[in-house]
Every structure is written in structure tokens, then in C-alpha cells.
């Protein structure tokens, strides 16, 4: 298998490891006495790692693993006394750390630019879990898959461990000396000093950058955003309002929502916050049903006018949730938007309606969209200010048209707001110009601040060559990535969880980042590097942050505190600060906006490339993350690869089938990748996810999929679509997919109804369960009876729960080959089905996990009692009793049991730090499955018992529930009739999977309600 060397997750690789490694790999349990943290706390980062190896060979599984080799070995080995184990206590215990007790630190997620507020669960000094910060105004407790998985990126073995010069270790002082010398040299020679910074950073970062620029006159900053979506958005708003900012959006206020290829639930701007708003806006009242009688509605009645339209080239997570969805070609985006604006202008009373209408691009929308656009325009203008038009394309004209549409609707101020938007730094130097300067040899020094244009810029290859012409080139990447490989000096940045920082989520809301562990390696925060390279005294990141906070946040904070230190303590505890801010100065100017309409349009063609971010990998920043690579794409269910999605009709026309290799050519560049026949794709569209095909991401991400960025126009990623040519290049690359069957075969596992039908009968398409007879009387469950309810109406399929579960329960990633053999290990999976027309199908998502059946079929068949029921109604799986007959899995109707086919590796001393010490790491040959986070249940009960109080409803949250951005999952005690879960279970929408088998699941699903229909 070619992947072995690259991916330790490749099952068989475990065997290839040398004996010592094997022995270590056998550790069943990552728990360490506080050696590591102790060492970390006393500043011996490496000491920690050395220590962590100890004990690897003392576990029982140490010999069980090797045992397979000879049965006799077992006999003898198993009866030895346990080898000597050491206990290494702290010398002096650091404040607030009690070995075995978790601490929680409020911080900011760095998964994407949304910068959600998170809580880092830190055990014995090492973060082991990312959870949402429920108090954070925007994310409100949700975290997406990327955020969850960032814990793996923190312990990524491929991170740079020290500053490097051309790959060779070099001390920080030496590095700083070289940098300063180089900068000085550049200044003296009058050569340019250039910085390539991310588009969206934080205030402190910006101010430090400003200091740097001040220190080096003539130095200029180029901003680089791989996907280009924020750039387009901000540019459009700058043109329209003169304010270069990301507007703050309130989906919950939008009654009519028109989204043009905008994947706001999946990857656009701030998916978690949007998902929360979206779910809030569409929440249905709870109506209990008992023996056909309906109870009182609990909660606000639904808004029947509320409808979400999605027009997009390829199926997106957002499109999957839409009430109405229409495929359109990428090149039709602008015409369609134009058509919409024209229609709105006719209906609008807006003073500038005429001006806008006249400025509109001439291209008229495709005929088949005329009718939908009429209807959409009607609904939008009916909703007026409570309507919202969004566009996800990083295309300036399209974004400008969106602004126009919202302006005509008067949406600004209600559903979308520029005044409270998060302002972005003014565009200083276009990246294109840096190229020319480099070519001309005018650049004396170029610094890449955590940007990786060599990979993510269409002309990255060219840049790689040009970099040689700069006397001084530096990168602050956290690893030797594509760009860092080609620069002279690597000044590795901390991982987010190791660093301080702040970010402006929206105007007046600052999210604070605080570290949860000492740096694992000899890295240094980028801001510290910047300040070190600026003139004057160098500051630590903490100093820089505090200084800014004291100067700017403290005076204007909403929560007044008598002293700054009190304020600061509170701020760090909360993880964010709200300040009184004057609204962004924003005045609408139609002229400026109109000028954008005039931009050249994409030429329609029969093959148009549509590049989009995938839910898991986004722009490829975290490609070296096995969890994200193995997270099945919510829509294609592929893992470890990106494919070219093509419409079924087109595929048959071209004689293409899943896995056939094609060569896509655009701008004279070609890539070869497998096709995937994906319903809901526009016939002219070829949809490819960006973020793949990294060459220097690390041992996991390298060579996974193909890099699509080079196909983009040379003008930089201002557009994410372009006409292309498609050639069947022959050959096959079978895709690894976690689910191959797309149709439900008419089975009632997922129930759906229209809002109209539901309002007529809350139990629509969900007949009440009839009582089934049983031979047995069953068992009593006094005390607690745990159960769960999953609202399919809220679930968007974003898969945050999958990764959350993986992080909480030490679930291994097994690699492409194993997944293609149908052996992925996820305890919680998201089933995805298509229904209806293949050109724009209805997409059904269903989180599938152990149903903890009351009459569990798996339990009856286990010969050794390795899976039995607990007194609280949980279906327990006892790994250390399991002999691995797999009978239970065969007899499990939803097939949610997972078998350890091999010894999966958990032996990397760094990667192992991510393991949760409260959950056993399973050995080869045993069955495992969802435990409903029993460790959390026990912990919650223990806490309540210690405080001598009854357990409160909602106090215990399962991992999946905690991170769910749309709060679709509810866990609790079914024995408590007033618990939320008990009520939901009695809801008229509630049904249980395969009830007719009389297995009695304790998990209820709630019918999915959509507002289709006229």
C-alpha cells in the first residue's frame, strides 16, 4: 500500500514499526501520572516527551500485542508479575493543577477565520479536547469539525521543533541577528521589504505589524487569502459603503434567505455562528403526543413565511438544508444575481433603485431560472428588511450585486449590518505586485506571516522560484510547508493553543486567546518574532496583548471593573470582551458599487470549474490532520481525497463513472483526478474541493488528493470559478467512501414532512408507535435512565459531532485503504441519503450511533458477557472482556459497532498527548462503540454527589451534543418526565429507529420539517 510510509494510521504500518515501537504501540491507556505536565510546568518540554515514553512498555497490552505471534508466549507472559512501574511526582506542584483533574481555559479557535470562542479542556497540563464556549456571543457553544480537530494539529508530529535556516536548526538569537541584518541590508540598499500576511488576523497582531512597518519605512504588506471569499466580500462593501469590513449577519432575523452558492453552514465566514442562528430561526415548538392526543405547543409558533432558497453550481451543505434549491452554472451566478436585482429594483422603493437598475450588467439570466427568480424576488420583497441575499462566490461583481440586492430590500440594519461588521485591514499591496517586484529583483526581504502562497496561490510554483531572488526570505509557518521550504529562514510560530492573541469577531466583540500549555517545541509566537524584528525593545506576546487590552479594551469594556487586573482576569475567564464601539462609518454610494457591475463576466462554457472549500479541510491549512482527512465529506462521503464532482447526466454523456480519472485543464494548467458522480451538480459544472494536494503539509497530508489552486486565473483567487476543459484520461482511482449506497430504498429510517403538513398534523408522516408484545417482562430502571433525542430538522450534517466523538473517545483514524475496505472506526457517523430528482435531489442527513436498545440484540449473542446493559439503561461494551467474535456487530441493526481489525498506532510520543485519559484505548481484536460518553456521565454524577445536590437536567452533555452548532442533539434522563429529552421523546415528531423490531432504542429522532411547497 503506497500510503503506509506516509500515514502511521495505515493499519498494517503498526507491524512494520520496530519492536520497541510496537511495544509502545501496545499501550492501552494514555494516562500518565503528571510526569509530562510536571516537566512542562517546570519548563522541560523535551523532558516531558522523554518521560512520556516511559511506561509504554509496562502495560498489560505490552505483551498482549506481541502475544499473537505465539499462543505459548501468551501463556508464559500473562503470568509474569507486572513489570516495575515508576511514579514521578512534581517537585513542586504548579498552581491550579491537580493530577487527574481537568482545567478549562477559555480561548479562541484558530480552525478558520471565524475565530469562535472555545474552551480548552486541559488535563495534567495538556489540552485534550476543544469545546465550544457557551457564553461566546457568536458561536454560543458550538464548534465545527475543524475546531474540534485542532487538538490533533496541536500535537502534530510534523510541526517544526526549532527555528531553521534552510532546514538546519539555528538558535533564535542567531535567527533574529540574521533577520535584522537582512532587513538593515535591504534598507541600506534601498530594496523593498515585503510582508505577506493573512487577510484576517487580530488587533494585537495588526498593531505589532504596524510597529514593524513603522520600524522599516517603505515596508509594505500584501494580504493573502487562499479562498478569496472575504476579500471579495470586503471589497464589495468598501465600494458600496467605503468601509472595508465583513458585515455581521443575522440569519435568525431573515425570513426569506436567498443564498447564491453561499455555503454559510459549511465553510463560509462563520459557519458555527450561522448554523446556530439558522437553527434558532427555524426552531419548531414542542408538541407532545400521547395516545393520539396532542399536548400544548411549547415554544414560539413557526414562521410559515420563513424559507431558504439556494442557487448553486454544486451541492453544498447549505444547499442540502435549503427549502428550495436550484442548480446553476458558475457563470450564471452573476446573470442570475443581476436578474434578481433587476426584479427587486422594480419592486423596491429604494431611492437608488433606478441607478442600480441602470448599472446592472447586460447579461440576462438563463431562461430556466426566470420563473424561480420571479418567485424568489416576490418572496424577498415581501419580507423586505427581513430578507437576506448572500453570495459565496469570491467574485467581486457577484458580491456587489448582493450588496445591491440587500440595499434594495433595506436589509442593511436588520439581517445584515455593515456598521457592526469586523473591519479588515486596508488593501496595501496587491500580491501580484510582489511577484513583479520579486521578478525585478527589487525585494530585499520578504516575510510570510503564517501564509503559504506557494501552495495556495495559483502561481505558487512561480513564486517558489522567485523567492530565490530575495536576499532575505522568512516564514513564520508552524512547519516546513510549501512556502517555508523555499525561504531562507523558518521562525516557527506557536500552535494556537500555545499562544496569546485576540481577534475582532465583530465590531465591539473581541475574542481572546490564551494558551493552555507551555510550548511543546522551541517555537515563538509570530507576533513576538515581528516585535523582535521591529526596532526597539522586543515584547512577549502576553505583554503585547495586555498592553493593547489595557489601552483599548479596558476603557471601553461593557463590564466595568475597578482595576485592569480584575478586568483582565475576568476577560480571560470569559474568553471575550464586549466594548462600546462607534458604528463603522458607512455611507452607501451607488456609483462606486455600479462600477463593480461593469467588471468582465465569466464566459459560459460546457465545462466550468467550481472550486469550493470542503467542510473538513477548508483552504488546506490543516491538511496534516488525520481526523479531518478521514472525516467523510457530508455530501460525497469520500475521505482522504478530493474528486471532481460531476452531474449524473453529464457523467453518462461522457461515459464517466465514480473513480474514473479525468484531466482538467484551465489557464493552460492541468490536474488529473478521479470523478465522482454527484447529484445536484449543474451539468456544466465540475466541482473540486480546494485544500488537497499538499506537498509539504507533513507525514499525513502530503500527497492526499490534488491541488486545484493552480487552475485559477493568474489574477489571483479573486474568482473561484473558471472555464475549463475536461478529458477522460483513462485509468481508475477508486474513491474511499464511508457510504456507498445513496438511496434509502423507501425505508422509513428518515422521516420528513413539509411545514404545511406539520402545522396540519404535528405527527405528519410519523404515525404513533404501536405497543409491541413481548415474551419478556423487561427490566426496571430505577434512578437514571439515559436517553437522547436528535432533531433531524436542525441537523445540517456538518459532522462536528463526528470529530467531537472521535476526540472524546480516542477513536483512531485508520487511513484511506482501511476506509475503502469499510473499516472506518467512527462511533458516530452521519448517514447521507439522496431522494427525488438527481439534478437537484433532496439530501437527508442522519447522525447514526449506538441506539442503546433496551432489548439490545448485540447483548444476547455475546458468549462472554462483554456487552450487557447497565442499571441506567446504557448498552455497555467491556473492551477488556471482549474476545472479538463480531457476533454482536452482525446482529446490530444499525451496524454501529466497530471492530479493531488491527493494532492501531497510538505510539507517537507527541500525538499520544491528545488521548483522553478517561477512556481506554482499545487493543486489536476487540469490539467498540458509542458509550454515550459514559465517562462524562460518571463525572457529572460524581460532581453532583460531591456537592450533595441532585443532577440537573442538561448538566451532563455528551461530546456530540456539546459541539453541535445547531443544537440538534439532546441528552438526558428519560426517567425525569420534565427533562428536555423526555419531552422531545414524547414530541409528535419523535420516532425510534426500527421500532418494529422491538429492540427499544433510547434514542429518538425527530421528523425533519422543511418549508418546501408554495
Amino acid at each position, binding site marked *: 500500500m503506497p500510503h503506509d510510509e506516509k500515514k502511521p494510521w495505515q493499519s498494517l504500518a503498526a507491524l512494520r514499526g520496530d519492536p520497541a515501537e510496537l511495544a509502545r504501540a501496545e*499501550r*492501552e*491507556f494514555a*494516562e500518565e*501520572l*503528571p*510526569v509530562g505536565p*510536571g*516537566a512542562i510546568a*517546570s519548563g522541560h518540554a523535551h523532558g516531558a516527551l522523554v518521560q512520556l515514553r516511559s511506561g509504554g512498555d509496562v*502495560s*498489560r*497490552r505490552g505483551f498482549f500485542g506481541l502475544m499473537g505471534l*505465539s*499462543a*505459548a*508466549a*501468551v*501463556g*508464559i507472559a*500473562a*503470568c509474569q*508479575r*507486572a513489570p*516495575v*512501574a*515508576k*511514579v*514521578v*511526582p*512534581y*517537585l*513542586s*506542584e504548579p498552581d491550579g493543577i*491537580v*493530577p*487527574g*483533574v481537568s482545567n478549562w481555559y477559555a480561548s479562541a479557535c484558530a480552525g478558520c477565520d471565524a475565530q469562535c470562542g472555545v474552551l480548552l479542556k486541559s488535563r495534567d497540563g495538556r489540552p485534550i479536547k476543544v469545546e465550544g464556549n457557551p457564553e461566546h456571543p457568536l458561536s454560543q457553544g458550538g464548534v465545527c469539525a475543524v475546531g474540534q480537530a485542532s487538538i490533533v494539529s496541536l500535537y502534530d508530529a510534523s510541526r517544526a521543533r526549532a527555528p531553521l535556516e534552510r532546514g538546519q536548526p539555528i538558535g533564535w538569537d542567531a535567527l533574529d541577528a540574521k533577520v535584522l541584518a537582512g532587513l538593515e541590508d535591504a534598507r541600506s540598499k534601498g530594496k523593498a521589504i515585503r510582508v505577506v500576511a493573512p487577510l484576517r488576523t487580530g488587533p494585537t497582531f495588526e498593531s505589532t505589524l504596524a510597529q514593524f512597518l513603522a520600524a522599516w519605512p517603505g515596508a509594505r504588506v500584501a494580504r493573502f487569502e487562499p479562498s478569496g471569499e472575504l476579500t471579495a466580500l470586503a471589497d464589495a462593501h468598501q465600494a458600496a459603503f467605503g468601509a472595508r469590513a465583513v458585515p455581521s449577519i443575522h440569519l435568525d432575523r431573515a425570513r426569506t434567505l436567498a443564498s447564491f452558492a453561499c455555503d454559510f453552514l459549511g465553510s463560509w465566514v462563520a459557519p458555527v455562528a450561522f448554523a446556530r442562528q439558522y437553527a434558532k430561526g427555524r426552531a419548531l415548538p414542542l408538541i407532545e403526543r400521547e395516545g393520539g392526543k396532542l399536548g400544548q405547543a411549547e415554544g414560539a409558533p413557526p414562521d410559515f413565511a420563513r424559507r431558504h432558497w439556494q442557487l448553486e453550481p454544486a451541492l453544498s451543505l447549505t444547499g442540502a438544508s435549503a427549502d428550495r434549491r436550484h442548480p446553476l452554472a458558475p457563470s450564471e451566478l452573476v446573470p442570475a444575481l443581476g436578474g434578481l436585482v433587476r426584479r427587486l429594483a422594480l419592486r423596491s422603493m429604494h431611492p437608488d433603485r433606478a441607478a442600480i437598475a441602470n448599472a446592472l450588467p447586460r447579461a440576462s439570466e438563463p431562461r430556466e431560472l426566470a420563473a424561480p427568480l420571479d418567485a424568489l424576488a416576490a418572496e424577498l420583497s415581501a419580507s423586505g428588511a427581513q430578507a437576506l441575499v448572500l453570495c459565496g462566490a469570491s467574485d467581486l461583481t457577484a458580491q456587489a450585486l448582493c450588496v445591491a440586492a440587500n440595499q434594495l430590500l433595506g436589509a442593511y440594519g436588520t439581517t445584515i449590518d455593515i456598521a457592526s461588521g469586523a473591519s479588515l485591514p486596508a488593501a496595501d499591496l496587491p500580491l501580484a505586485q510582489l511577484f513583479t517586484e520579486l521578478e525585478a529583483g527589487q525585494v530585499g526581504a520578504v516575510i510570510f506571516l503564517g501564509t503559504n502562497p506557494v501552495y495556495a496561490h495559483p502561481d505558487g510554483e512561480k513564486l517558489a522560484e522567485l523567492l530565490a531572488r530575495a536576499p532575505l526570505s522568512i516564514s513564520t509557518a508552524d512547519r516546513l510547508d510549501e512556502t517555508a521550504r523555499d525561504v531562507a529562514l523558518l521562525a516557527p510560530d506557536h500552535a494556537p493553543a500555545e499562544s496569546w492573541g485576540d481577534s475582532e469577531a465583530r465590531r465591539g466583540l473581541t475574542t481572546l486567546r490564551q494558551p493552555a500549555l507551555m510550548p511543546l517545541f522551541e517555537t515563538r509566537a509570530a507576533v513576538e518574532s515581528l516585535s523582535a524584528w521591529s526596532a526597539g525593545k522586543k515584547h512577549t506576546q502576553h505583554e503585547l496583548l495586555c498592553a493593547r487590552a489595557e489601552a483599548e479594551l479596558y476603557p471601553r469594556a461593557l463590564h466595568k471593573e475597578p482595576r485592569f487586573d480584575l478586568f483582565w482576569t475576568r476577560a480571560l475567564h470569559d474568553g471575550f470582551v464586549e466594548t462600546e464601539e462607534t458604528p463603522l462609518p458607512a455611507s452607501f454610494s451607488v456609483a462606486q458599487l455600479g462600477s463593480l457591475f461593469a467588471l468582465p463576466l465569466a464566459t459560459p462554457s460546457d465545462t466550468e470549474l467550481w472550486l469550493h472549500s470542503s467542510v473538513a479541510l477548508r483552504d488546506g491549512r490543516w491538511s496534516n490532520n488525520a481526523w479531518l482527512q478521514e472525516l467523510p465529506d457530508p455530501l460525497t462521503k469520500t475521505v482522504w481525497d478530493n474528486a471532481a464532482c460531476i452531474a449524473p447526466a453529464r457523467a453518462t454523456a461522457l461515459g464517466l463513472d465514480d473513480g474514473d480519472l479525468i484531466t482538467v485543464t484551465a489557464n493552460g494548467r492541468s490536474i488529473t483526478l478521479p470523478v465522482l458522480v454527484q447529484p445536484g451538480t449543474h451539468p456544466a459544472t465540475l466541482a473540486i474541493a480546494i485544500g488537497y494536494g499538499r506537498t509539504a503539509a507533513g507525514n499525513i497530508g502530503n500527497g492526499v488528493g490534488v491541488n486545484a489552486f493552480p487552475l485559477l486565473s493568474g489574477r489571483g483567487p479573486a474568482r473561484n470559478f473558471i472555464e475549463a476543459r475536461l478529458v477522460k484520461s483513462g485509468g481508475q482511482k477508486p474513491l474511499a467512501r464511508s457510504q456507498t449506497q445513496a438511496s434509502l430504498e423507501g425505508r422509513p429510517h428518515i422521516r420528513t414532512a413539509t411545514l404545511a403538513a406539520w402545522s396540519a398534523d404535528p405527527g405528519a408522516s410519523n404515525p404513533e408507535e404501536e405497543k409491541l408484545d413481548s415474551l419478556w417482562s423487561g427490566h426496571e430502571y430505577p434512578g437514571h435512565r439515559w436517553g437522547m433525542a436528535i432533531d433531524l430538522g436542525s441537523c445540517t450534517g456538518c459532522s462536528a459531532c463526528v470529530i467531537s466523538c472521535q476526540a472524546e473517545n480516542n477513536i483512531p483514524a485508520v487511513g484511506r485503504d482501511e476506509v475503502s475496505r469499510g473499516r472506518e472506526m467512527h462511533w458516530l457517523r452521519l448517514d447521507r441519503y439522496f431522494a427525488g430528482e438527481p439534478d437537484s435531489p433532496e439530501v437527508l442527513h442522519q447522525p447514526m450511533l449506538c441506539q442503546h436498545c433496551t432489548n439490545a440484540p448485540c447483548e444476547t449473542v455475546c458468549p462472554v458477557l462483554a456487552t*450487557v446493559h*447497565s*442499571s*441506567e439503561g*446504557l448498552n*455497555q461494551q*467491556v*473492551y*477488556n*472482556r471482549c474476545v472479538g467474535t463480531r457476533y454482536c456487530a452482525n446482529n446490530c441493526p444499525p451496524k454501529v459497532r466497530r471492530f479493531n481489525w488491527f493494532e492501531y498506532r497510538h505510539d507517537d510520543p507527541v500525538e499520544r498527548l491528545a488521548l483522553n485519559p*478517561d*477512556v*481506554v484505548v482499545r487493543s486489536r481484536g476487540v469490539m467498540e462503540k458509542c*458509550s454515550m460518553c*459514559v*465517562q462524562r456521565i*460518571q463525572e457529572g454524577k*460524581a460532581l453532583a*454527589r*460531591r456537592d450533595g445536590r441532585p443532577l440537573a437536567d442538561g448538566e451532563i452533555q455528551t461530546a456530540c451534543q456539546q459541539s453541535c452548532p445547531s443544537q440538534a442533539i439532546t441528552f438526558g434522563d428519560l426517567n425525569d418526565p420534565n427533562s428536555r429529552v423526555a419531552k422531545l421523546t414524547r414530541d409528535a415528531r419523535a420516532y425510534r429507529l426500527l421500532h418494529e423490531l422491538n429492540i427499544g432504542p433510547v434514542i429518538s429522532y425527530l421528523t425533519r420539517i422543511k418549508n418546501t411547497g408554495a
Partner: protein
Amino acid sequence: MIKTCLLALACASLAACDNGFLTQQGYEPAQPIAFSHALHAGEMKMNCQYCHFGAAQSRHAGVPPANVCMGCHKNVKTGSPEIIKLTQAVAENRPIEWTRVHRLPDFVWFSHQNHVAAKVACQTCHGPVETMARVQQVNTMTMGWCLECHRSIAADPANAGKLNPPTDCSACHR
């Protein structure tokens, strides 16, 4: 055939372990520093949790950090050779590697906190530590041994409503 015989041998010996013939009972390793519980906990009647303060708040009772010892031994018996080992370690900022006496298998989740909260005396499991110059594992610490206690306490009507130690698998195996 031979494989089967070997397997039989293996099973036989494993079965033996199963039956608790071979446990760590009586394990009494030498420690880097000859610390005497008999002296501290016995003669001086120091509370167990004075040093093992983790027991009340964490799953681990924990071995006390060196600075806890130094709390007294900065001025008490500073001359004794054993104490000198300690002071040296602290001086060199070198953690002390104690040899672990009580060690449950990796797949067992045990919480000192829960047991302390339930007012289980340390001696119930660890034996009369206050009489031991060198700590020894006095109990088998097998699953059956744990269950015995859990069951008898649950069965005792005197504990009804106050204590109900779980006998669910997931109480210890998760």
C-alpha cells in the same frame, strides 16, 4: 496440533492468572528514599491526605510533590542521609522516581475521589499502611475483590439511599 497444545498451555496459565493465583499481593518494592509510613502516619499520626491531598479531589491520590516533604524537612532531621537524598533531588530540580506499589490494570478506571467522598477508609484497600515501614500491597486488588465490597455495601440496608456503589461494568471499564 502442536499449536493447539501450545494454546492449551497458554489457556491453562491464563486461567491460572484469572483465578488470582498470581496477583501483585504482597508486592513490597524498595523505594529510592526509605520513607516510612509507620513513622509518619503511625507514630506521628499524620493524616493520609496531608500528603496525598489528591485523593479528595482527583482520581489519583498522587505521590506528594517533593516540596510537600520539604515543607517540614527544610528544618526537621535535615542531617539524615535519606533526607539528604531528597534535598539533593530538589536542589538538582530532578523529580524523584518512586516505585509504584499499587497498580490497577490500564483498562480499569478507579477514582480515589469517589471513594474518599463515600468515606471509605484508606486502609480498606491499602491495608494498615500506618504500620508499614515499607509499603506493601496487602490485597489482591482483583475485580472480584472490588465487587465483593461494592456488593456487600449495596446489599446493606443501612446504606440504603446514602451509598449505592455501582456494579455496572462501565463504572470501572469505559
